[in-house]
């Protein structure tokens, strides 16, 4: 799951946005687009010398410094996506089979060097076995459906500990 997907699926949630010029905008997210432009409702906009409440505001994506989200946003979004995915399970499977061996690095493969990935994964896998400090309290025993974790990369690295049989098997 990419950051933008997380944001898009946290519609209705309260968040605090700090802008590049230091202003903060607090409100409920109503809409997000591809470029991280946002519309928020019930807004409190704090500038250096004043605080204004507004019914709505539109914030341009490239003016955002960071967004402080609710603590449970990751769990909430994963729950709703897990529900949706249990329906579309078959399609997901077929798609990944078509990808072939390097299939489990979904996002990565598509954007970057396809061939190189496989080898690089193995190298990384063996070194991450020891001293593994993964903070994954979100491990879900799943039916091989990678997207229930936070994105292709993460899931791959979790399974790398049990290596390499799991590589390319899902």
């Amino acid at each position, binding site marked *: 799951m990419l950051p933008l997907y997380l944001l898009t699926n946290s519609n209705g949630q309260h968040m605090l946005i700090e802008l590049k010029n230091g202003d903060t905008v607090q409100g409920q997210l109503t809409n997000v687009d591809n470029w991280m432009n946002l519309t928020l409702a019930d807004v409190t906009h704090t500038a250096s010398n004043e605080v204004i409440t507004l019914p709505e505001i539109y914030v341009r994506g490239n003016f955002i*410094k960071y*967004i*402080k*989200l609710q603590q449970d946003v990751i769990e909430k979004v994963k729950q709703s996506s897990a529900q949706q995915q249990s329906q579309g399970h078959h399609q997901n499977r077929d798609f990944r089979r078509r990808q072939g061996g390097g299939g489990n690095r979904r996002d990565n493969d598509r*954007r970057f060097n396809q061939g190189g990935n496989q080898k690089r994964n193995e190298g990384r896998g063996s070194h991450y076995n020891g001293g593994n400090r*993964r*903070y*994954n309290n979100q491990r879900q025993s799943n039916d091989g459906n990678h997207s229930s974790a936070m994105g292709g*990369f993460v899931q791959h690295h979790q399974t790398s500990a049990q290596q390499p049989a799991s590589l390319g098997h899902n």
Partner: protein
Amino acid sequence: MSESRGSPAPGKSKITEGEADLYLDQYNFTTTAAIVGSVDRKIFVLLRDGRMLFGILRTFDQYANLILQHCVERIYITEENKYAENECGVFMVRGENVVMLGEVDIDKEDEPLVQMEQIPFEEASQMKQERDDARYKSESQKGRQMARYGLIHDFHKSDIY
């Protein structure tokens, strides 16, 4: 923004020679390639406004937009050997504001901190603000003087790292 994994020091290597070669041959020198190894680990992020964030990297994209969980903002006041922390929950940081990021060794990270005094966050934040304001004043004054000679000295208030 990439962790440098050049030739590892003897006895302290994180990767073997063979793997290092793989890196050089097939490493894509892309953002994703550099960051992906840090997922689900504690990282520090330095932002352009000078903030230091510590958190567990959950996900990211090709622009280095990051999602950090259990994020903590830490202000270091090295001249007085003090520091302060502030819990911030889940943060989404837009990639363009990141100066650098790297993994934190959780075994070693507390070593310097035990030797420093922890102060309340508001106090530290005030000190940082004062320092930044002073710096901004001196830089903008310099800019104005340079402008008199037709020279440009651009200093943005949002880039004080």
